[in-house]
């Protein structure tokens, strides 16, 4: 069985980030899962055990004092140790495929690794299949309007995988550790300052959340937007927004769902006061169930909603929060 190598993102202290679970789940479907990490010296042991729990049969470890691991220390080189570790792991393990998270760091490393291996990157997979030795990537294009399948001829299959898209999980394994030697010189910008971002809410991250509640211009003000937050909390959901709501300053830009924001594919998407311009739909229409609440009967979002309420959101949403509370 071919080895499928997963690049696992780690925090500065060496904790494995959540994206690894889905990547190893997909890897187990395609072959024998292996993982590669780049951490600060001495910070890898917890990560190796965790990756075993998530199904990695082999973990290739590159330790480097230049490993940034997200919020890296001053002097770290962004992406350099990670790129070198993946390239070294490819040489050591000869995988049939290399899977990376479609996060900003994952994409950067994917591009650099692929250029080294002189192969293309299959971008933003939502799934993949294997037949014999041939791996086929499945992509959801233009906000889910199309599904395409692609293969790579003539080299390993390097791909980024959409966060939250893979539900498969691999069975736990006792991983063999493979130490990597990273080259001394490397290319990358230097981190001159790292300001930790205080987590301002206990809500789930937008990307990968099973339930997302988003608000739009219909909320009318930043104060009113809090109502969307209350509904999100009642449902245990991540908070999203349309571009109009972000542009109006109701909510921070990181909440934006759509073409130029985050693409989400949750089990449930609730849109409050969002008309549903095509740019917004492109970021959420692969949700399993869509609910829309809007005063305007002609809002385009009603065309794709599984359940729509034409009504005043300031009446309906508080009632809905009550109803959800009663059923808990």
């Amino acid at each position, binding site marked *: 069985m071919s080895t499928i190598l997963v690049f696992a993102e780690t925090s500065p202290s060496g904790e494995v*980030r959540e994206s690894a679970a889905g990547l190893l789940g997909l890897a187990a479907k395609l072959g024998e899962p292996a993982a590669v990490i780049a951490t600060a010296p001495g910070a890898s042991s917890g990560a190796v055990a965790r990756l075993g729990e998530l199904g990695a049969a082999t973990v290739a470890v590159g330790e480097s004092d230049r490993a940034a691991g*997200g*919020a890296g220390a001053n002097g770290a080189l*962004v*992406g350099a140790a990670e*790129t070198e570790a993946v390239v070294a792991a490819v040489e050591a393990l000869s995988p049939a495929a290399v899977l990376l998270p*479609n996060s*900003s760091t994952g*994409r*950067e490393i994917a*591009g*650099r690794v*692929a*250029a080294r291996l*002189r*192969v*293309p*990157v299959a*971008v933003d997979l939502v799934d993949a299949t294997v037949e014999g030795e041939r791996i086929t990537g499945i992509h959801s*294009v*233009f906000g889910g*309007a*199309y*599904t*395409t399948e*692609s293969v*790579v*001829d*003539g*080299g390993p299959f390097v791909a980024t995988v959409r966060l939250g898209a893979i539900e498969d999980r691999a069975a736990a394994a006792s991983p063999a550790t493979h130490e990597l030697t990273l080259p001394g010189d490397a*290319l990358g*910008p*230097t*981190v*001159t300052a*790292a*300001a*930790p*971002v205080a987590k301002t809410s206990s809500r789930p991250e937008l990307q990968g959340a099973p339930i997302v509640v988003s608000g739009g211009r219909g909320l009318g003000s930043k104060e009113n937007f809090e109502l969307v937050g209350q509904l999100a909390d009642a*449902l245990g959901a991540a908070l999203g927004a349309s571009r109009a709501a972000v542009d109006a300053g109701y909510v921070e*830009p990181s909440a934006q769902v759509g073409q*130029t924001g985050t693409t989400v594919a949750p089990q*449930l998407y609730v849109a409050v006061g969002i008309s549903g311009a*095509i*740019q917004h739909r492109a970021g959420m229409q692969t949700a399993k169930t869509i*609910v829309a609440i809007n005063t305007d*009967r002609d809002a385009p979002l009603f065309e*794709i*909603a*599984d*359940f*729509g*309420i*034409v*009504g005043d959101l300031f009446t*309906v949403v508080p*009632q*809905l929060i009550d*109803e959800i509370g009663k059923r*808990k």
Partner: protein
Amino acid sequence: MRIAVLIKQVPDTWGERKLDLATGRLDRDASDRIIDEIGERALEVALQARDAKTADEVVVVTMGPAPAAEAVKKGLSMGADSGIHISDDALAGSDTWTTAEALAGALREGGFDLVIAGNESTDGRGGVVPAMVAELLGLPLLAELDEVTIGAGEVSGSRGVDDAILTVSAPLPALVSITERTPEPRFPNLRGIMGAKKKPVAGQDSSAVGVEGGAAGPGAHSVVTATAERPPRSAGTIVEDDGTAAAQLAEFLAKNRLI
């Protein structure tokens, strides 16, 4: 200082965008073609450096079929000094690798101190080409910058990662990719539009940029093996609120095990 800005012509996101179901490629005739906004923002970053006299020259670089000349012209009318347009039938359907190879080929001989690109296009959304080009050119990559500061021999900026905002810097030459948090692009004025016609645009084919055989040359390639249009999503239950709509919705969510 010479700055190259990578731009891309894409289908307008305000319209319906289509794929050719036979080839899996973009149906370029199905929608209006525009310069991708993220490329305009990248150009704005470069033009501000020129306005501040940090940069002397700004060159827009694109790869695409003949109509992509319009995107180059838009860049020139915004204020770029010249353009490079890589265009060749042999490059049609290029994957991320061939695209990066061609762009790197065009940039390699240009003597650029800084290359600025958008972090991802609105059509492909892959976001890997800037990193591939940087690696091919042996340049440090400052990816996904929300703010960019261009100095005489150095570029720096801020980048949001999972739990921090990093300040990163690298000596020039370097490659930067920017996010849509960078400033709004300027609009071309009449003088810019008139002047654009006189500015030079260098056409380059696949051999000029060193990609022998184009998209089907030797080496590894992505091949699209299937393309399907998702059946349109049909509308479900729509209720006018008569005071019971919230209760009906809660019932619907409970029935579907969503609460």
